[in-house]
């Protein structure tokens, strides 16, 4: 078991950036081993006529999605894709029935590239013609494709030390009895060999995980063969993914979740009372994904540039070393701080989580939030008994509807936190919410703004809705109801577009992809007569009959009423008039624009609704661009 360096040595490197992305101390190498036997190409659903999806398709889909997630997460994990039970063979060992899928400019085990994602996505279309499918283990033959596949996978994972890299083989198959077709001594022999091969791999620090695919009517019986291969014992077998879901989508979901490897942020101590101090791991389950950092390149060579930082004394212009002293002006003086003093100020607590007490859940208001929450889960790794205390508190808090208030003394920002117990929620696609506690970062009084009071008027009682108006609103709420809304059902359109463009550019495609924005409201749904009626009734009830008309009038009145807008309008008119008296095209043609004054240039810009900021050259170039020169 590898000792995690994070928990012990990371206290000092605690910083804001770390909060948002956990550092990858361990890279991960994964080989996706996909069964390509004809059985995988059989229909996966129970209704043969309806579903045309195959298990093979499900597996390809999952891997595709996970490759995309990896490339977006800009991780340094390396992957290889390998099919077995194939007609063709392609592998270093030249073993039969194993095909290592790869694209140009890439090692077999390497970080995913745009091309890999793209070609892999379409691998099914040409699979039969290029790679082919057939049963690898048949009676009368000495071939053992599963054995070969494990061997190839193990060979692929040879690089990298097992200390710094976690290595995994993910096996996708729907055959629970791979040696079912043969009998006798050959069978036992083959089983023995395969198990030995798997064991060797595991001894080398490679973990093998099975992602079974099965049809609803015939479960995947893991105990026939795979339990032994995976080294499952006793209870573990029954806990092992009891059955694939009812629906194929659920299965995809399940597989996708299981493909992730958990990564903790750090291990912290949670001090409860009188020296009882348990240990918990923290996980960043929710963090906003950003488009990633940019790099500066030389536009001629497209090679990355080196950034050099230099410190210049503002008074003398002399180059100085990176200063260790900071200052703040105060009362016309300069107060100096050394970096040590600053870190001392920030150090309020020792990085532990201190329990302060408990409060009912309704004390946690909607505005008590600052940052994404952190998930905590107990660990018995160093302090035995932590889990038991954690579970006991977890249950009590759930039952009594309380949350724990604690002080989290992280160096980056020591903060009060609410620990909200979350019970496990499972759905048809497996675990939806893991059991544990969510750490919610609470604001201080300094962070809360009392905006409501800003527009408070004395004497004027703010009107409240009448019961009838509330009833109309309730009717509306009932109409526009998102029944099965789940929190993360939308993909981020900006991010999707960003990576869509990058993928297209990386592959040298001209066509920019069209990304659908899922976040737009359902116009069609909202125009259903029932909803329209409810909206109309509500509108009349709160606004009165002729609201639109009044609004239009008000807007018209405002149009000529507001001082600023009138001025702006007048300016635009003058500009348009003045601008018309110049022959801009001619001036531009003869390079005479620079002879005009800035004021004159701005006439053109204002008249054409262009920005008027910048130096004269900027204005001129903007005019030229607009004229299409």
């Amino acid at each position, binding site marked *: 078991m590898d000792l995690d360096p994070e928990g012990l040595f990371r206290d000092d490197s605690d910083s804001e950036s770390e909060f948002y992305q956990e550092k990858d101390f361990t890279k991960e190498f994964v080989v996706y081993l996909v069964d390509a036997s004809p059985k995988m190409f059989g229909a996966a659903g129970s209704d043969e006529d309806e579903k045309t999806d195959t298990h093979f398709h499900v597996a390809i889909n999952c891997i595709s999605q996970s490759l995309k997630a990896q490339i977006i997460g800009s991780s340094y994990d390396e992957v290889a894709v390998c099919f077995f039970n194939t007609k063709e063979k392609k592998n270093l060992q030249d073993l039969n029935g194993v095909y290592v899928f790869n694209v140009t400019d890439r090692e077999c085990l390497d970080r995913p590239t745009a091309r890999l994602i793209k070609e892999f996505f379409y691998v099914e279309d040409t699979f039969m013609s290029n790679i082919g499918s057939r049963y690898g283990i048949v009676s009368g033959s000495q071939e053992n494709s599963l054995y070969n596949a494990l061997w190839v996978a193990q060979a692929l994972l040879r690089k990298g030390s097992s200390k710094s890299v976690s290595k995994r083989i993910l096996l996708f198959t729907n055959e629970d009895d791979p040696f079912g077709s043969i009998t006798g001594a050959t069978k036992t022999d083959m089983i023995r060999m395969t198990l030995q091969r798997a064991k060797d791999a595991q001894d080398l620090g490679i973990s093998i995980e099975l992602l079974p695919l099965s049809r609803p009517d015939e479960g995947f019986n893991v105990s026939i063969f795979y339990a032994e291969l995976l080294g499952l014992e006793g209870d573990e077998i029954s806990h092992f993914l009891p059955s694939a879901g009812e629906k194929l989508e659920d299965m995809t979901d399940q597989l996708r979740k299981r493909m992730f490897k958990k990564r903790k942020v750090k291990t912290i101590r949670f001090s409860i009372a009188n020296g009882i101090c348990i240990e918990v791991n923290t996980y960043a389950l929710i963090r906003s994904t950003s488009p990633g950092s940019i790099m500066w390149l030389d536009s001629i060579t497209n090679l990355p540039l080196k950034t050099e930082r230099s410190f210049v004394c503002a008074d003398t212009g002399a180059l*100085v070393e990176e200063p260790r002293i900071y200052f703040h002006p105060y009362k016309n003086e300069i107060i100096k701080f050394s970096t040590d003093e600053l870190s001392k100020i920030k150090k309020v607590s020792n990085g532990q989580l201190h329990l302060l007490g408990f409060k009912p859940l309704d004390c946690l208001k909607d505005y008590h939030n600052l940052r*994404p929450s952190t998930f905590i889960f107990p660990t018995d790794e160093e302090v035995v008994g932590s889990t038991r205390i954690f579970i006991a508190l977890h249950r009590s808090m759930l039952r009594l509807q309380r949350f724990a208030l604690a002080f989290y003394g992280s160096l980056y920002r020591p903060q009060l936190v609410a620990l909200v117990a979350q019970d496990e929620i499972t759905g048809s696609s497996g675990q939806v919410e893991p059991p544990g506690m969510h750490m919610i970062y609470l604001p201080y009084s300094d962070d809360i703004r009392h905006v409501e009071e800003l527009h408070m008027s004395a004497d004027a009682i*703010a009107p409240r809705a009448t019961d009838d108006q509330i009833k109309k609103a309730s009717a509306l709420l009932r109409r526009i109801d998102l029944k099965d809304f789940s929190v993360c059902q939308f993909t981020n359109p900006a991010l999707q577009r960003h990576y869509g463009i990058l993928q297209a550019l990386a592959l040298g495609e001209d066509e920019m992809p069209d990304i659908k924005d899922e976040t737009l409201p359902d116009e069609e749904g909202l125009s259903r007569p029932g909803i329209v009626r409810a909206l109309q009734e509500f509108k009349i009830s709160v606004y009165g009959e002729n609201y639109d008309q009044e609004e239009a009038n008000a807007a018209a009145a405002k149009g000529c009423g507001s001082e600023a807008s009138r001025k702006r309008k007048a300016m635009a008119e003058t500009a348009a008039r003045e601008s018309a008296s110049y022959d801009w095209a001619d001036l531009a043609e003869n390079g005479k624009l620079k002879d005009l004054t800035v004021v004159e240039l701005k006439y053109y810009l204002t008249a054409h609704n262009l920005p008027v900021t910048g130096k004269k050259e900027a204005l001129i170039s903007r005019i030229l661009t607009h004229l299409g020169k």
Partner: protein
Amino acid sequence: MARNKEAVVLLLDVGPSMHSVLPEVERVCSMLVQKKLIFGKSDEVGFVLFGTDDTYNELQKEVGGYEHIVVLRNIGVVDGNAVGFLQNLPRGNFPGDFIDAIVVGIDLLIKKFGPTNKGKQRICLITDAKYPIKEPYEGTKEDQVNTISQMMQTHGIRLDCIVIREKLPGADLRVMEENDSLLDQFSRKAIAKIVHVDSPTSLLGALKTRNISPVTVFRGDLELSSTMKIKVWVYKKTSEEKFPTLKKYSGKAHSSDKFATYEVKVDYEYKSMEDPDKVVPPEQRIRGYRYGPQVVPISSAEWEAVKFKPEKGVKLLGFTDASNILRHYYMKDVYIFIPEPGNQKAIVAVSAIARAMKDMNKSAILRCVWRQGQGNVVIGVLRPNISSVDNIPDSFYFNVLPFVEDVREFQFPSFRSFPSSWQPNEQQQEAADNLVKMLDLTPSEGEEVLQPDYTPNPVLEVSYCFTQTVSPTCYDKIRRFYHFLDLKSKQPDADVPPLDRNLRGITEPDPAVFSCHKSVIDNFHKNFELKEKPKKKKSSKRAWRGKPSASSEEEGVDGEASGFQSSNLMKDSSNINVEKIGNLNPVQDFEAMMARRDSSKWVSKAIKEMQNHVSDLLENSYEGDAYSKAIECLLALRKGCILEQ
């Protein structure tokens, strides 16, 4: 006055009943002044004390009356001396009359700014309002309050009132009720806010020491549909107050240079990899975006042409049950949607929807693009905020929700699947229940300790403190900074002050609460045992402060074979040289001993002890519960012997 300039008059009650909290009052007021020195250098402050032995105010000279009120500092631009005034407030021996004090405060403001200059004018009253106020010469007290409110309103003066009352027996309830109702009358008739606090720590949080003028994030329509829109303004409700940005210091300037800035500028130069001497000019630089191992160069013009450009607008996607959105999905700081000020129809519309949402326990899902040209959309949840104050309209809170890409669906084992040795038994569960019940921070109805709204940031406090002389009291991180700043201005070599007693209540459990439920905690303590795994320890620096007595005191609570576990567990974890095979991790101890190379005796000792351990295990086993452990040990023993051969 300038837009962001404000004038504040602090009215501080220094009467006998206030003496216990005056140190905190001094501090919170100093903080206010210190922050003004940094963030609002042209703001003006004045201090008025009431309940004093002396009397010194202009009203007394002009019209008489107004006794025991001292104008400590007339209104003027903040300066360093202002902090000095607040260091040692005189303790008065007379009951203070807060109505008189308010009148004096208003008088100061009116005299200073006259009827024409209506800037931001604020009166902060800190009192415990325990003493009856004097009967006015004419009319009732209520009439008097009305007149004063009227005056405040015409001059645009706000009143912030903090009533601090620690739980003290023997106070005159009737008087306090009367005073409270008078103060409440202010909040109805004038622009006033009354806050009741019950601990000095809350006092630190209750007074807004920094004046931030909020800006709207969005003004426009909340579109329920294309035909039904509500005009709203959106502000930030919470926003992290950061540690102040410090400038880098350069001591190069000549000491006679009066205009020296002492600043350090940072220059960035971009150089090509092949030729480190060549600086690449900005126009020759191009942005590269990472895509896997590739870096894709895109010019900003190209990027502008293809990037995602949503239309500005706030649109409703629908309503959903509040239970569909778990609390931990809230992503960022919180926004507040208020109906357009003064727009009665918008106020009613917001009110109707907010109240309907509250009644039906629904949330609304919105898609927001705050500005035109914003590169992204925001999906979030709208929750009702029903106003409890008559002249504040209902509003909504808005929290940002994650996208698919932002969520990592890690799978965790179910607690039920854990072995029984990790599960609490009934007795332990009861101890936990009691702990959760008793360590209650909401001791009685309406009371709540450490409410975020009144809890200051300790770090900011202390830093402000640093700039002050070593006052024994300093606050939490940002506060800490300000304290330190002030301290340093007086004593350049000052050390970072320790965390103040009151602020410690934020970072550490309150000893009072904990000691009063000592039995519950002790019971909890007794029911659970914790053991440190010695082998896993890498650094001995990490203090695990378990009391050794805890683990030896009790045993067998869980009916598991804990008898052989609880002895011999508290060994020094930093001791890497294992000298004997313990009961907790015999295999690891064995391996450690086998690996010791300082003397050959360890190997034989290890083998011997391991043999004994295995036979002990087998002998002491109850219904075979230790067999698996014994086999583990045996395996380790065998492996070790093979290696040693």
